[in-house]
């Protein structure tokens, strides 16, 4: 069907995203009449599962929310509970947690940059097709991801859904020797990440800049993982305890995931672009210099360039991992003693895809009476729809097949983590 009436861009199953969702865009003449990112993956009710459980179980239960970023869930959980109970952690435990997060960022960013997102820019349906022509690139991705896995396995006990994170520290900590054994791999990974930045900079980016409200953690001394105030480029500057005063989750009919907005303002952006723009001065020299070398400096407002920013964060994660290993000495105790008592605690940490908020209320036996979890993707969903509304309007003159591909690419720029990846892609295009 052709004509200038109503046209529909429809992607029934978004591929190369974590989880199950579809995309629907309705064009009427030159106008974008409707945009819906439909999340049909069923609700998972984790906040309810947590009620009545002891606080020591929260890290392992919430890790099950995601196979790609379980450490983010563990870190937000243990930090929120430690705040609720007034627990202070050993400085070496703090360092190890940073290393743990480095492992997750390396795994997740290597997977997304190369295997999920790069095929969009190079015109391949998937990474397997890309591998035939870009073998060295895919080999680099696999080795990078494996190095991230090694860190997670060493600190967490296993690669997926690690089991070692605990309130107060870790159940088991590595020796210096074990960490030193990672150095050779990480030195290679640092060089490979620098190459990744240069390689992503050679890709062609659609010219699409938006005036986002970027929201990320900011720490006085370091690029953020587990600590810092929550800030934005529109004046937000709050403690995690104030999060619910400023952010609201909305239920929308077409999505089983809630949409989060800044109270009184609307959509906002979390993730690599937000972190980079708000914390550029906190990147280690090696990461900041390579960003400048390829012409990346804040504010980066082009969503499609997030693949480059992820690559810069890969450089950061490798350099930070090496720093931690240099400074590490095993703590006197792997974890602090943690009492059972009442309390309420909130924490925000930086998952690969952006901020992850947890709040727990505990009773005198240390049982969870209430839990709240706001994952990064639900914080980006409203922004994704806003972006598509703007972006699709620029594509109205394009053949629908290409417009559909471009819109999918825009969604994938967010690296949405709906829960676990889908593969099959069915695109239906209608014109009236």
């Amino acid at each position, binding site marked *: 069907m052709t004509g200038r009436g109503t046209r529909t861009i429809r992607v029934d199953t978004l591929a190369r995203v974590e989880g199950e969702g579809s995309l629907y865009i309705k064009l009427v003449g030159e106008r974008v009449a409707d945009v819906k990112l439909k999340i049909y993956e069923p609700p998972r009710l984790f906040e309810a599962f947590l009620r009545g459980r002891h606080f020591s179980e929260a890290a392992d239960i919430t890790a099950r929310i995601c*196979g790609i970023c379980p450490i983010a869930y563990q870190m937000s959980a243990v930090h929120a509970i430690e705040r609720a109970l007034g627990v202070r952690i050993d400085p070496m435990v703090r360092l190890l947690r940073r290393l743990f997060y480095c492992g997750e960022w390396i795994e997740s960013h290597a997977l997304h940059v190369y295997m999920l997102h790069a095929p969009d820019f190079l015109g391949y349906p998937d990474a*397997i097709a890309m*591998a035939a022509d870009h*073998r060295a690139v*895919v080999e680099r991705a*696999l080795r990078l*991801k494996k190095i991230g896995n090694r860190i997670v396995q060493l600190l967490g006990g296993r690669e997926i859904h690690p089991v070692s994170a605990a309130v107060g520290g870790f159940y088991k900590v590595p020796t210096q020797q074990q960490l030193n054994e990672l150095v050779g791999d990480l030195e290679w990974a640092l060089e490979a990440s620098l190459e990744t930045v240069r390689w992503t900079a050679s890709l062609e980016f659609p010219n699409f800049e938006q005036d986002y409200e970027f929201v990320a953690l900011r720490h006085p001394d370091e690029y953020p993982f587990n600590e810092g105030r929550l800030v934005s480029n529109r004046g937000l500057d709050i403690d995690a305890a104030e999060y619910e005063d400023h952010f609201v989750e909305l239920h929308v009919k077409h999505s089983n995931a809630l949409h989060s907005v800044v109270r009184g303002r609307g959509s906002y952006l979390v993730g690599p672009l937000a972190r980079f723009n708000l914390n550029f001065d906190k990147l280690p020299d090696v990461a900041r210099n390579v960003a400048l070398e390829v012409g990346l400096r804040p504010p980066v407002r082009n969503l499609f360039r997030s693949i480059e920013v992820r690559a810069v964060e890969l450089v950061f994660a490798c350099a930070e991992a090496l720093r931690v290993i240099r400074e590490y000495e095993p703590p006197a105790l792997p974890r602090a003693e943690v009492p059972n008592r009442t309390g309420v605690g909130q924490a925000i940490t930086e998952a690969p895809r952006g901020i992850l908020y947890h709040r727990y209320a505990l009773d005198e036996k240390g049982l969870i009476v209430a839990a709240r979890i706001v994952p990064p993707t639900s914080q980006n969903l409203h922004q994704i729809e806003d972006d598509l509304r703007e972006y699709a309007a620029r594509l109205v003159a394009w053949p629908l097949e290409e417009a559909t591909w471009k819109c999918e690419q825009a969604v994938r720029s967010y690296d949405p983590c709906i829960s676990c990846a889908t*593969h099959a892609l069915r695109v239906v295009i209608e014109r009236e």
Partner: protein
Amino acid sequence: MLILGCGNRDRGDDAAGVLVAERLWVLGLDAQICSGQALELIDAWNGTDDVIIVDAVMTGGPAGKVWLWEGEQLPLPETLSLSTHGFGVAEAIRLARALDRLPKRLRVFAIEGSRFELGSTLSPEVMCAVKEVVAHITKALETAVPF
């Protein structure tokens, strides 16, 4: 020889590959349990010449039927992939072929399953198929070793 049993033990018949690997491991064979994700598989068989993958499939055939793919019959049709992550055994074989990282000999035992709901139990037909595949692999080994 390395045996990689893929699947999820909490999803009914999807546990088939896991159970085969466990039984073979108890018998002293080099058998591992995998989630079945492509990158994990390619990594697991790195440096091994002779690999057997055991996984559950759903092709519409009768529950408990055992399929064997080998050599030129590979890669598997994509429709056979049961990975919830969408990047499973079939993709592992395709990707490894593109990267020249396929083992010299690769066999895939696929057990037809009928129920894959979270929390469901193994169907009796698939339980029989698990025993059949374990027997087949151990028997094949006996003939390969002359004493």
